[in-house]
């Protein structure tokens, strides 16, 4: 049996490699290939275009930090979606939770004078809390009223969206003669100018450090704690979890709350660290939906979400560089879209490979 234990470890490593990592790389490759076909058809040289894109991202310290700046918020929303998914919930509401997080951060920054340093921390926490409440509403409705979280979170996204627009336009927050709020107060800013000479206009902010901390937080909760154990049990088999004495309603609410908190933190650090205000929006910005993509590219794994977030952030930033050679920056969206589709299709493809392998080795399906 010792032997099988060892074998199973190796098999597990192999399966992680095979099933997730390689498939993801392959999907990215397919995405880039699809992008080059489009480039060719529209009369651009793919090598030149990709050179511009990746060179533009990886070229200097400054551009690399820009990519990180783009990545930070979507790492949070990616984690949010991932966490919910790991506990059997589909959080489409990261968008709304992100908005609420940003809004709460703004409100605290404007209305609650505190000494510098502390102010920022409190505002970030307020953002996390607001996101948590927004997520928990969906969790509570699911747990105690049986309303599916997908529907509730989609509706909550719109409520958050209009609520944010409304608050921003009230006299208390509106910046005169603009369609945006006032700036967050100086004391609540969480970025630093200390690296200005290295990174120029990039906003180096505490959220960039908080993101990997959040990754570790998710991973530890899910894999190492009794809380994660219970949340996952509810995700896999609600009935057995309930029968085993786990408070299912509480678990679902808590899980959505944690998920919402992660997205809310993303909104808060973006507002306090990068944007500095909230504008009245005509359409949702899509940070929450990007989170779904990040979660998928990351293989629905917290650590995966970190790298997927960086990748996606880099692509988003790099897209703007395509204008240099006259190629449309929307190309990046096409590439990401193809990657997502490939990953989804890979699921089917994987099932097929598994099927044939199983047949060959005589394993059951």
């Amino acid at each position, binding site marked *: 049996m010792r032997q099988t234990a060892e074998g199973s470890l190796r098999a597990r490593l192999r399966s992680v490699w095979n099933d997730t990592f390689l498939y993801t790389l392959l999907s990215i490759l397919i995405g880039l290939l699809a992008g080059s076909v489009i480039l060719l058809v529209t009369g651009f040289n793919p090598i030149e275009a990709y050179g511009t894109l990746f060179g533009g991202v990886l070229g200097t310290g400054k551009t690399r930090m820009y990519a990180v700046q783009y990545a930070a918020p979507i790492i949070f929303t990616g984690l949010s979606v991932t966490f919910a998914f790991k506990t059997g919930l589909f959080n489409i509401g990261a968008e709304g939770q992100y908005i609420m997080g940003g809004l709460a951060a703004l409100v605290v920054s404007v209305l609650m004078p505190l000494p510098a340093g502390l102010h920022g921390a409190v505002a970030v926490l307020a953002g996390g809390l607001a996101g948590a409440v927004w997520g928990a509403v969906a969790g509570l409705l699911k747990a105690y009223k049986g309303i599916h979280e997908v529907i509730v979170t989609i509706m909550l996204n719109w409520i958050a969206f209009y609520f944010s627009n409304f608050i921003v336009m009230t006299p208390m927050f509106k910046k005169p003669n603009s369609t945006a709020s006032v700036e967050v107060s100086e004391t609540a800013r969480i970025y630093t100018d200390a690296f200005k000479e290295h990174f120029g206009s990039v906003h180096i902010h505490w959220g960039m450090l908080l993101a990997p901390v959040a990754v570790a937080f998710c991973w530890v909760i899910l894999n190492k704690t009794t809380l994660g*154990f219970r949340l996952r049990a509810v995700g896999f088999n609600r009935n057995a979890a309930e029968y085993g*004495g786990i408070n299912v309603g509480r678990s679902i609410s808590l899980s959505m709350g944690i998920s919402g908190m992660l997205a809310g933190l993303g909104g808060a650090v973006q507002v306090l660290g990068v944007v500095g205000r909230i504008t009245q929006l005509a359409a949702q910005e899509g940070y929450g939906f990007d989170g779904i993509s990040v979660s998928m590219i990351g293989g629905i794994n917290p650590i995966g979400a970190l790298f997927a977030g960086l990748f996606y952030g880099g692509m988003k930033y790099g897209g703007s560089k395509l204008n240099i050679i006259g190629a449309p920056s929307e190309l990046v969206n096409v590439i990401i879209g193809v990657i997502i589709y490939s990953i989804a299709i890979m699921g089917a493809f994987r099932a097929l490979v598994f099927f044939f392998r199983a047949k*060959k080795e005589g394993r059951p399906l």
Partner: protein
Amino acid sequence: MDDSLSGTVAASESPPAVDMLNITMMFGAFKANDNVCLTVPRRSIHAILGENGAGKSTLMNVLYGLLQPTSGEIRIKGERVSIDSPSRAIELGVGMVHQHFMLVPPFTVVENIILGREPMRGAGVMDMGKARADVKELSDRYGLNVDPDAKVEDISVGMQQRAEILKVLYRGADILILDEPTSSLTPQEIKDLERIMKNLVAEGKTVIIITHKLAEIKAIADLCTIIRAGKTIDTVRVSDVSEQELASMMVGRTVEFSIDKKPATPGEVVLNVENLVVRDYWDHEAVNGLNLTVRAGEIVGMAGVDGNGQSEFVAALTGLRKAESGVITISGVDMFNKSPRTLFEHGVSSIPEDRQKHGLVLDFSVAENLVLQNVGEPEFSRHGFLRKDNIMNHARELTETYDVRPAGCAAAKAGSLSGGNQQKVIIAREVTNDKELLICVNPTRGLDVGAIEYVHRHIVSQRDAGKAVLLISFELDEIMKLSDRIDVVFRGKVAGSVEGGKADQAMLGLMMAGGEAHAANR
């Protein structure tokens, strides 16, 4: 294999329906089937008997094309075939009904049966009328008695199973494999199924049935093949052997059917239920005014025909369904409509009726399942962090004590275990909880006779350790063997009570059918 036996079969009839020769099936390095031979004559009922994890389901999955054997040969009606998929098996006339049904609940019976084989009328238009007629005709011919228009989610487990059989027949199977068809059926439904199997054979079909119930084998099967640890032990003519002999062949030792049980020494009342009323799904008072007590140190059996409120009673007792009114106390503490968590904390442990729905998280490992309720205890977690080594050690210990197979399965997913071994995991967990009250609902469902004997001993030893045990089971034998007192439920009430040693089948049967309580005194 017994030469004379296969000799007579071959000489007297056309080639056998199924001939599996030297089938070996490996899972990695593990041999689930090791040179197994199985010859099934046409128009016969052939039983396959073996311990939990012996490899019965595996062998049948090979025959049905779900698994490809590592080596060996299969002949169907004398012709050598390779069955690489279930659709190929169906082409060859082999059909299988799995232990866990595969029906679509919101669909009607007809819709389920024709799924994938819809009769068409022209381009893309389904001929429902014809489908219905065909299904009805089949149902009548074999006496299956299914309502073709009922939705699957509304019909009983027994009828769902008959619908599955109908589905297999609809696809033209003449060799039917039934994997533990009776383990979730009530005695009445089992009788119906036995009659149906005889009809099938009379109509020229061949039936292969996996079952752990020896009496059933004696009652219906012609031949029985015994498998132990993946190897064929023997194929015998059922009429030539006793149940006792079958059991010893399968386990490899003598099995004690009777249990050595000291007289009970009941103590304080642990469970007290008074005037309990519970509504069922359709808002009927399925339990109406039920009274019951279980004392420390006694086993109370609850017997009754299915549908007399037992399920609702247990659901209310275990916190899965809200009761309407009444009293439930555990050791004097009010436990009316409390959550499963509170019940657990106040000394209630239970083996649920549906092991896959309520008992196990199939995607969790065996080890994780074993700490599902008490992961918060200091042994398994500290400051909210899991102590994985302790959890694994705990699992190793329990799987060994309770003989959960294969050995060393602590890290395996619960879903990969054979059905009987899944049940053992639950029993191990609930019995080691060592609570004041142990509720057992059909605790030995799907277990082999050896394992049943073992579980029964555990239940009795819980009693001897001063625990209160409530046993609810469809198996009258089990109830009679273990109970110190038997309460018979009829229409949501306890209709009568008999001392364990004094009960007999006939008397209980009468009471279950609604006879007067004093039938006990005749």
